Structures are given as structure tokens and as C-alpha cells.
């Protein structure tokens, strides 16, 4: 393709080739993806053969590059645009195509049916079935569950924990039930602009018709896109950690059960790095009696991406051998923590998988094990209704 129009549209001319983007890119060290070099090509070459760059699918959209660029160039947006070119020409990995098709047809990338989207309220125990109000009837707080939390068996407990906590705090909340559709964060980052715009329009309309003043999400990915990309004026968008921290501070959640564990917290890219929400998750953990919070060296702004974002949940990438999640769980184990706490469904899945593959869930010579849990699962343990 001709580089000129995209270079102008993305205003890549501001780039001074300082290398901070590639320097901080988590996948650059394990693949040939070099965003600085790609920008340079856009600047100096008249043409670019996008299809020759399979590594474009490696980007996790952690946005380290965007957050740190001294000239406000937004390098990751170039990757998204180039992916868009590949999508348009139909040259996408099969798994990604399937996921996108799922979003289009069933409102979720998992390949499961829309009508099964509310199955998560049921944990198999008939006594603990939660009643959730339909947001369409009107509510103050709209709880956006997220496709992964709704459909993935490992993540469903997080949604249930949140619903229970909202109930315990006496909040007037509701969900969209089977009418909830994918937020589209991954869709946009995979380059499927048209589908994303459609989701923004449909979801946006639905949110506005509910009339809730607040919208809370399970996933930082949904949170980020609703907050920064949807243009939902008049609705306050929160990630659950912000809301739960607020409720704890207001004394509306009774966290009396002890959880005597050493816990370390992994900052999700879409919550921490991109939206600067670092303190609320930690405040929640510290409010749980018995929790000893230890920090990894790479915390907060330097948290190591788990490789779940940017559509990577549906694409392995060009280097399957060295997964950053492996390195990350080792870093967690080094702190001596027993629990690696997360606040994102993707981090939960990728880091737990890494723990299993590395065998960290089996007792080591000191008898220690590492378990990956969402913050809400810990809150759930501590919460007394």
C-alpha cells in the first residue's frame, strides 16, 4: 500500500526516532515487531507490503509506546491501522476471523450462543443463584459483565462475586442480560473498524436508554473503551476496582473473614498503564484482613504485559515459545507471594495458564505454591453479607 495517506492521517511526521516505543515494547524482545522501524518505513518509503509483516498480530496494545512517546505520536495506532488493511484484504489468522465473526453474529468472540450469555449467574448450586435486575427496566448502576466473564467458566466466579458485592452494598444495579454485546475493544484493536463502529452505536444507544448514571465493568478492556473511545457523555464509567474501593471506604462492604495470604498484585495494562488506576486495587487488597501485600519490582507503570490484550486472546502470535506470562509468574513467585492477584479476565486466564505450565501451582522445595486469583475472588472470601 502507499504509505503517504496513512502517514499523514496518523501524523507520524512528529516522530524523532528516539526508540522509546520499541525500547519499551514487551513483545519486541521476542518477535521481529519493531514499531519504531515500522514508523520510519512509513516516513521514508513510498510503499509498504503490509502482508509481509505477520508480526503485526503480535502487538498486545499494551500502549507502552503511546504512554511514553515524547512527541505524542501514538505508535500503536499505526499497528491498528495496518491491521485494518490486513482485515480489509482478508489476510487474517483463522482464529481471529472466527472471533470477529462470533462478535458479529452472537455478540461475543467465544463462539457460544447469545442466549447462553446469562448462564454465569448460576454456579451450579441452586441455593446461591443470584437474582439480577434487568437494566432495561431502569437502574442507577449498569453492570457490564463482559463476554469473557459471562462465558468462561474460570472467570464467571468473578462476575458472581461482583454481583454479590453490589447486592451486599445495597446498590441499585442491573445487567443487560442476553442483550449485552461485546464492547468491541478487541475488535477495534484487531483493525475491524466497521464492526467496532457498529458496536459503539448499538451499545451506546442501549446504555443511554437504560438511563443509568454509572457504568461499571468487570474487565479493564471494556472499561478503557467505554471511558475513552465510546463518547458516553453523562455516564460515569468505572472499573470495578474503583467502585469496590469506594464502597469499602464508605463502609458499605463488611470484609470480616480473614484471608491469611501473602498477595502480590499484577497491574493490568488497560487499567494501570493506560488509565492510571494503580491505587484502588491495592486499597482493596489492603482492606482484606490477613492479606500481606508485597510488590513485584515491575509494578505499576512498568507492569509486564500478560499478552492478553490487542486481540491476542485469539491469536498466538509469531513466537509461541517465550511467553511473557511465564516471565511474569516467575517474578510473582520471586516475591514469595502465595497469591498473584489480578483485576482483568485476560490476565487471570493467561497468568493462570502460565502458572500451570511452569508447575508453580505445585509445592516447591519450601512448600510454597502460587495461585492466580482475581481481586474479587479474594473479596468474595472476605465478604460477609
Amino acid at each position: 500500500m502507499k504509505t503517504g495517506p496513512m502517514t499523514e492521517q496518523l501524523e507520524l511526521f512528529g516522530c524523532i526516532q528516539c526508540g522509546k516505543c520499541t525500547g519499551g515494547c514487551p513483545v519486541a524482545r521476542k518477535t521481529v515487531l519493531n514499531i519504531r522501524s515500522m514508523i520510519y518505513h512509513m516516513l521514508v518509503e513510498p510503499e509498504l507490503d503490509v502482508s509481509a509483516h505477520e508480526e503485526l498480530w503480535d502487538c498486545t496494545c499494551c500502549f507502552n509506546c503511546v504512554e511514553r512517546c515524547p512527541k505524542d505520536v501514538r505508535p500503536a495506532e499505526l499497528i491498528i491501522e495496518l491491521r485494518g488493511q490486513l482485515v480489509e484484504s482478508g489476510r487474517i489468522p483463522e482464529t481471529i476471523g472466527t472471533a470477529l465473526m462470533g462478535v458479529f453474529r452472537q455478540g461475543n468472540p467465544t463462539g457460544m450462543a447469545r442466549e447462553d450469555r446469562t448462564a454465569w449467574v448460576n454456579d451450579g448450586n441452586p441455593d446461591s443463584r443470584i437474582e439480577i435486575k434487568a437494566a432495561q427496566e431502569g437502574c442507577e448502576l449498569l453492570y457490564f459483565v463482559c463476554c469473557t466473564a459471562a462465558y468462561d467458566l474460570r472467570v464467571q466466579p468473578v462476575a458472581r462475586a461482583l454481583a454479590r458485592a453490589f447486592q451486599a452494598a445495597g446498590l441499585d444495579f442491573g445487567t443487560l442480560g442476553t442483550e449485552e454485546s461485546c464492547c468491541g475493544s478487541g475488535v477495534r484493536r484487531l483493525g475491524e473498524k466497521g464492526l467496532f463502529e457498529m458496536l459503539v452505536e448499538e451499545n451506546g444507544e442501549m446504555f443511554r436508554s437504560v438511563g443509568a448514571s454509572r457504568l461499571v465493568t468487570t474487565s479493564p478492556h471494556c472499561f478503557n473503551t467505554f471511558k475513552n473511545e465510546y463518547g458516553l457523555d453523562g455516564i460515569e464509567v468505572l472499573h470495578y476496582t474503583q467502585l469496590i474501593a469506594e464502597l469499602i471506604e464508605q463502609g458499605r462492604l463488611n470484609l470480616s473473614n480473614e484471608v491469611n495470604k501473602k498477595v502480590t498484585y499484577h497491574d493490568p495494562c488497560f487499567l494501570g498503564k493506560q488509565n492510571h488506576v494503580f491505587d484502588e486495587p491495592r486499597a482493596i487488597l489492603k482492606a482484606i484482613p490477613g492479606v500481606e501485600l508485597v510488590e513485584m519490582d515491575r509494578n505499576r507503570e512498568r507492569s509486564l504485559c500478560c499478552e492478553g490484550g490487542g486481540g491476542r486472546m485469539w491469536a498466538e502470535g509469531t513466537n509461541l515459545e517465550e511467553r511473557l506470562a511465564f516471565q511474569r509468574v516467575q517474578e510473582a513467585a520471586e516475591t514469595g507471594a502465595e497469591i498473584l492477584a489480578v483485576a482483568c479476565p485476560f490476565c487471570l486466564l493467561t497468568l493462570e495458564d502460565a502458572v500451570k505450565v511452569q508447575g508453580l501451582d505445585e509445592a516447591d522445595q519450601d512448600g510454597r505454591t502460587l495461585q492466580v486469583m482475581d481481586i474479587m475472588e479474594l473479596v468474595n472470601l472476605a465478604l460477609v453479607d
Partner: protein
Amino acid sequence: MEMERNKPAALIIGAGISGIQAALDIADAGYQVHLVEREPSVGGHMAQLDKTFPTLDCSSCILTPKMVDVGNHPNIDLMTYSEVVSVERAGEAFRVRVCKKPRYVDIDTCTGCGSCAEACRMKGRVVSRFDEGIAKRSAIYVPFPQAVPLKYTVDPTACLYLTLGKCGKTFLCKDACPAGAIDFEQQEEFVDLEVGAIIVATGYDLIDPRTKPEFGYGVYPRVMTGLEFERLSSASGPTRGEIAIDGKKPKEVVFIQCVGSRDPHTGVPYCSRFCCMYTAKHAHLVRDKVPDANITIFYMDVRAFGKGYEEFYDRVKHERVVYRRGEPSEIYRQGDKLVVLAEDTLLGEPIEVEADLVVLATAVVPRADAQETGALLGLEHSPDGFFQGAHKFRPLDTPMEGVFLAGCCEGPKDIPDTVAQGKAAAASALRVLAQQERE
């Protein structure tokens, strides 16, 4: 000019912007200034510039009022087309002899009408130094239309009469002059002055680009220096500001930084300081006047260090000017295009870029006669050949008490730093003059 016995005066050698600024400060403070300039007009190199970075003020717009002030100031004795011949210590003061070179034109009667230049036999045949050789003039001339003083001068190297002894049957210039101002009998005149302080503001020269023959300067007409480009782009230049060579607008413009600077082969290991900025400005001017041109700048480091400079560099990049890191090795011709050979060090590959205009940012060097000027005043030179100040905290003091440096004769610098140094030297001079006055 009669001097008040008790009020000491200052001598300023060189009336570029630093000399002009120093003169105005000293004169405004109430002291007399003898401002000696060897060209027919004041203004120096700044008068040759088109627009200045980073504000894009036109150079003439901000310079000419100061030039006019210097020409009109009651406390400034302006001696143009003159040179300092000798300087001697006289107690605390200096005795200075100035030679007023013959213009062969009486400046009291000349009205600057220009009829002589129109009539001159050599009209259109004398290479104009002010226009950096890209335009021609007559043997009797003013360097530029806003010259101060606006008086004509006969160029003794170009005038047929002065070089060969005769000019046809009659002097066409004399015949054309309505004021009868032309006088070929004029002699040089010597003036003796006594001054309390001296400021050296003699400016700079640019390296001959032929010292880098691999760039084809002088061989390819489409390879020019930065200062030539200024004249091309200037509204008062030979093309009235149109960027065109032989009537054609360039499509592929390449700028090359550090031509001769930072280069042991030319004997210029130092950085010329303002070329990164003027090249960015040039790129902007091209973009302004040739909207669809491809503009490339080859660089090693982009030195945009001053106030507003980094922001200007950002702005220029956003105007679709592509910066490629790599110092070109040579230029050769292929058909009717030039080809610039370089390595793009960010791609890590050798490249060949076509161009139909190449502008070389040539090194700033001391004046050709800097050694003589230095000897006249007992100045020291740093290894780079420019004058050397005493030390870091006294960068403009010289071994001679009462003699100060200002501007690019001390080392290359941009206009704000040059003006600051002009004022700084004025402060030193005022200190000396005020002390002398009190005694």
C-alpha cells in the same frame, strides 16, 4: 567629528547585528560611538536572510529599523566602506586610525536614485556578492535596496575605468547622475580617533563548499549553499522569492547538514551551531512555496536547542519534511537528476535519493582576515580560529583591557545569542566609559 573632551567614546568594528546592537545600547546610554563597517552598507549577513527562525519574522523587517536608527542616531558616527588601520594604546584610551575607502561617489550629494547603475556599461555583468553569486549587478552599486546609507559605491575590481584605465568614450554613470555625485578623483581619507573602549564585531565567513568536492558544488548548478538558498527565497532576491532554478520549481529537495562542520578533513572539527535550525526553516520555506515537493533533510544530530527551537523542529516535521539520519557521502548526476548517496543509519542500509535541488549547510568559519584583525588588537584565537575570550565567566574579555568581543567573530551563534553578546560587550564598554568619565 568633534568629540567632547570629557565624554569618552567607543569604537565598534563591524556593523552586523551585534555591532549595530552594541552601538545602539552605548549611544542610547548617552555616549558617542564610532561605528566602522568595511562594506558599503551596515547589516552584515543578517541583511541577506529571508525569514528567521523560529518566529519566521522576515529578517529585513526586524533589521532595517535598527539599521536606520544607527544611521540617524545623534550619538553614532557611522563610517561605512571604512576599515580600521591601526590601534595604539594611549594611556587608558586608544588612538585609532580609520581609513575611509574611496567610493568615488560623494555621499553628501548622492540621492541613491540608481540612475548610474542603470546606465553602467557593466550592468548585469558583475557577480553580486550580497546575492551570493546567484545574481549580477553593475560596477556601481548599492548592495541591496534597503542599504544604510543608501549611497552608491563604485566597485574597484569591476569598474572598467578603475581596472583598465578607461570606460568607453564617456563615463555613462557620470552622465546619468542628476546630482553630479560621481567623482573618480576621490582619494582614501584617514581619520584619527581617540576612544575609551573597543568592541570587535567582525562576524563570520562560510567555508568554500569546494573543500568538499564530493558534493559537486560548482559542477552541478542545482547544488547550492544555505546562504544562496536564502537569497533565492528572499523577496528582495534575484527571483523575487520564487524557489526556481532556470524557471523550474524543484520537486525533490534535499538538504544536507554538517557540510564541512564536525569534519576533521576540512579542519573544522566544531559545530557551526545554527545550521540545524536554518535548514529546518529552509525546509519550511520550500513547503510554503512548493506545496507538493518531497523534502528530505540528511542529518547526524538535530541541534534544536534554543528557546522555541525544538517546537519549531516539531512543526517543520509535521509539514511532511522527512528527516533521514545519515551524512551523505557524495552526489553524482544521472540523466537530469542528481543522486545523493548516503547510508540511512536508522534503516541500516545504503540509499540513493534523487534530487533536483540540493542545499548544503556549509560550515561557519572565521573571517579570512581574522588573523590580521587579531594582530591589530592583540586578540587571542581559540583552536577553531575564532577569537578567544578570557574564560567561561568572561567570554567576551580580551587580553587588551577595554577591548571586547561580540557576535560570531567569537564563534558561530544565532541571532538571539549574537544580540545578547552585542549588548554584553556594550555593558563592558559602558562600564569602562563611565569609569573614564568619572576620572
